[in-house]
């Protein structure tokens, strides 16, 4: 039985989106005012969607977990945003951006969605410029570009090392305008607690007001989930502290299928872990790999001497350095995609060549860039990143090489959506990192910002109208129905249960245990034996949570411990399907690396014959095994090849 209909329009790849837009149904302005839309999440995807839908005339309610939309973690993206403008005349095109994204995703993304993403990429840049986003300019006054991993053209637009910040502030400004106009209503410090489904359609949500603990009901004709990814399942990640996959899990429990949960991106350039107290990891933009060269000592005794503090990296002669990415991948060098760069670092460290006190670090060196460009130019390009590094590590990166190590960064998996970004629950849409659709098994740098804004500005305003056009006969969704009452009651019971356990272990302790299991057994290098170990460990952790967690505070006031506990309970469930998905996928592709499936040279080995599909998980109820469905991926327009960056 295949219940998945991806609703990909007929026709040539380059005509699909145009044809869709020409034939989709619209809603007239008088009716738009009568239709309510809920958007959960205020990052790039959520803010851009809410602003665009509000401007069209829909009644939008947007829910923000923080005090302001500007806190969303999109703000931390540093490097840039891709677009196929070809301003550099270096051979870029929509087709090439499409091709690079599919290849970068290791042929596990849906062709039609990715093509549309490449197609609308140029409009995003124009939109952001119109909003006053201060992109970098060259001396002619035109937009500047830089290159990024996984591409041989310069197509990345940037605003210093703060591109995510500027794009989010652009979307936030568009949102602020709509809030002022009254088309969007903003609810801050609210966390979604459940999805309400009425007669098979998404009709509202239950939230907890984080300031006073109040449980609230909200009804709407459609709901958009824009709550980002679930990287914090690993405890240590580059995600912000409040990032969580809880809303997606609630939707999964209510019947939305979850796609490719095992596809997690490990980012190669993060500041290494220092100690047990570490609460999160800090990313250093991938753009650093444009000018920085990655190396470890060639001699194992040098690596050991460095770890023991007997030798400084600057004392190692050029010929004793192993620039392993340049050695292994001469064509792309330091600019290989993230998954490859991450694994190569792990491989060197596991082999005993790692540096830093722990041995889990490699060098990212700007010595030759400073010699070539001068310190001023390097400072102009990366000044704020260097400053950030120095503040955290207390080492001057102009004089010493930086130390980096891979860390969990982004989740390609997410709620399954069709071409319209609609989940398996009618009326429930998922956008940005929260959905699975565009990055396959690995995301290219500067593509997350592109996807979040593409979905919000240029896709959902069309596809949601197609859905909402049928909803004009539905009057306002009442929250005084049985379905809302049941959902609210179950949320209250769950919260009361968590508060009443009174066990021995703090939420943070259990969270660290979850992170440890995931990093060790479901992390960068996976194998069947470890995954089979992880599954019962996660089951035990789940039992332990529900019998031994220790909380303080109460339900009816601001209580960060309770917030973390609710998210942890959902993260354990997510971890379970991540491990199961990783176990069933007996191949290596993109960020998913199974140690049993490698080429003779140690590179990832895909199995297109048996695994060219999206693994789509259906929740079957508490204590029931979830069921996996398959959405077969058909490549009609692209020639599927082994990824090669040599």
């Amino acid at each position, binding site marked *: 039985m295949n219940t998945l209909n991806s609703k990909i329009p007929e026709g040539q790849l380059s005509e699909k989106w145009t044809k869709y837009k020409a034939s989709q149904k619209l809603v007239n302005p008088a009716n738009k005012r009568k239709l309510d839309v809920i958007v959960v999440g205020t990052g790039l995807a959520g803010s851009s969607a809410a*602003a*665009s839908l509000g*401007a069209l005339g829909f009644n939008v309610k947007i829910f923000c977990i*923080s*005090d*302001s939309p*500007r*806190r969303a*973690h999109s*703000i*931390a993206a540093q490097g840039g945003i891709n677009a196929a403008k070809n*301003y550099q005349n270096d051979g870029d095109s929509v087709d090439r951006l499409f091709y690079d994204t599919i290849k970068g995703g290791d042929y596990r993304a849906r062709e039609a969605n990715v093509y549309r993403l490449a197609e609308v990429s140029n*409009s995003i*840049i*124009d*939109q952001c*410029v*119109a*909003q*006053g986003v*201060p992109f*970098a*300019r*060259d001396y*002619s*006054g*035109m*937009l500047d570009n830089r290159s990024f991993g996984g591409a041989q053209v310069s197509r990345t637009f940037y*605003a210093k090392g703060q591109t995510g*910040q500027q794009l989010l502030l652009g979307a*936030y*400004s*568009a949102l*602020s*305008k709509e809030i002022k106009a009254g088309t969007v209503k903003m609810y*801050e410090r609210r966390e979604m607690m459940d999805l309400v489904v009425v007669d098979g359609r998404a009709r509202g949500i239950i939230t907890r007001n984080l300031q006073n603990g109040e449980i609230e009901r909200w009804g709407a004709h459609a709901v958009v989930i824009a709550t980002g990814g679930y990287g914090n399942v690993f405890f240590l990640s580059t995600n*912000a*502290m409040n990032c969580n996959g809880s809303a997606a899990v609630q939707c999964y429990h209510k019947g939305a299928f979850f796609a490719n949960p095992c596809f997690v991106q490990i980012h190669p350039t993060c500041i290494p872990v*220092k*100690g047990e*107290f570490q*609460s999160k990891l800090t*990313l250093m933009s991938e753009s650093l790999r444009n000018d920085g060269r990655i190396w470890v000592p060639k001699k194992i005794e040098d690596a050991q001497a460095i770890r023991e503090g007997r030798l400084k990296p600057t004392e190692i002669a050029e010929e004793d350095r192993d620039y392993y990415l340049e050695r292994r991948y001469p064509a792309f060098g330091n600019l290989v995609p993230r998954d490859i760069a991450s694994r190569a670092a792990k491989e060197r460290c596991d082999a005993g060549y790692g540096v830093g006190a722990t041995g889990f670090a490699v060098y990212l060196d700007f010595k030759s860039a400073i010699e070539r460009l001068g310190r001023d130019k390097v400072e102009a390009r990366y000044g704020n990143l260097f*400053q*950030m590094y120095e*503040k*955290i590590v*207390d080492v001057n990166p102009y004089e010493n090489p930086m130390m980096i190590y891979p860390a969990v960064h982004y989740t390609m998996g997410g709620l399954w959506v069709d071409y319209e970004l609609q989940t398996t629950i009618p009326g429930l849409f998922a956008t940005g990192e929260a959905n699975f659709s565009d990055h396959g098994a690995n995301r290219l740098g500067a593509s997350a910002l592109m996807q979040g804004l593409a979905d919000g*500005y*240029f896709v959902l305003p069309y596809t949601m109208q197609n859905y909402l056009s049928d909803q004009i006969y539905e009057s306002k969704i009442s929250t005084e129905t049985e379905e809302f009452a049941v959902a609210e009651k179950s949320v209250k019971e769950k919260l009361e249960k968590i508060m009443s356990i009174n066990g021995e272990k*703090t*939420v*943070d*302790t259990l969270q660290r245990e979850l992170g440890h299991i995931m990093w060790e057994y479901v992390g960068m290098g996976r194998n069947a034996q470890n995954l089979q170990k992880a599954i019962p460990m996660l089951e035990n952790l789940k039992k332990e949570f529900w019998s031994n967690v220790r*909380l*303080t505070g109460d339900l009816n*006031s*601001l209580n*960060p*411990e309770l917030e973390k506990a609710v998210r942890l309970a959902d993260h354990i469930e997510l971890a379970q399907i991540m491990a199961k998905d990783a176990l069933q996928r007996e191949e290596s592709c993109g960020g998913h690396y199974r140690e049993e499936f490698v080429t003779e040279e140690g590179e990832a080995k895909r199995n297109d014959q048996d695994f060219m599909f999206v693994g789509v998980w259906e929740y079957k109820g508490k204590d029931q095994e979830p069921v996996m469905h398959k959405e077969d991926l058909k490549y009609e327009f692209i020639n599927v090849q082994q990824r090669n960056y040599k």
Partner: protein
Amino acid sequence: MDFTLKIWRQENRKAKGRFETYKISNISPDCSFLEMLDILNESLVDKLSHPVCFDNDCREGICGMCGLYINGHPHGPDSAVTTCQLHMRKFSDGETITIEPWRAKPFPIIRDLIVDRTALDKIIQEGGYVSATTGGVPDGNAILISKHKADEAMDSASCIGCGACVAACKNASAMLFVSAKVSQLALLPQGKPEAAIRVQNMVAKMDDLGFGNCTNTYACEAECPKQIKRSNIARMNREFICAKVASEESTKR
């Protein structure tokens, strides 16, 4: 390292607050300030007391969510960092550290060290944007902007909205925050058509919400974690005066 912490505790907006003293030991100098508070909180939960509530999110100095008033300075003693990027190596072993919330009338306390900063969003909603809706905009390169202007606009735009400038100011003035946004859009051609209306409406809202005026002490600039310059305030004043004197447009929308 060992520390004595004097922390402001207040159960809710209306409750009476007080300082409580905590001892904490064996803290690594590499620990960030917030990680130190995490350790304190875990020990409080262990003893079944309520942890100290503080806002935080990205922990890499960009979201603007964290903000503690540490030993009399917003974001503590280090320069050009947010609280989350402050490290314990910046304190001396055995030191007593006083931690308070932002104190300003427009920022009421929600709990302990958490304050309500939605007033800043309300100012932005009065005009801190270009009124371009989605679609129908020209090509990005159709609007030429000199590198110098673009860079200057970027410097103003790098404000993170943390509110340290307000907390640092004896008048609880939000001039640095407001002027950063006004400047960014005044420097760019995209912001010009609405410039006169924008500055008047944003300033009116700022006054309305109870933020004080600027008396040129520049504490805001000294404490700003993103080093937003006071020249933004000068630019805003110029924009404001020009708008008041010369603009014939109504500020009504």
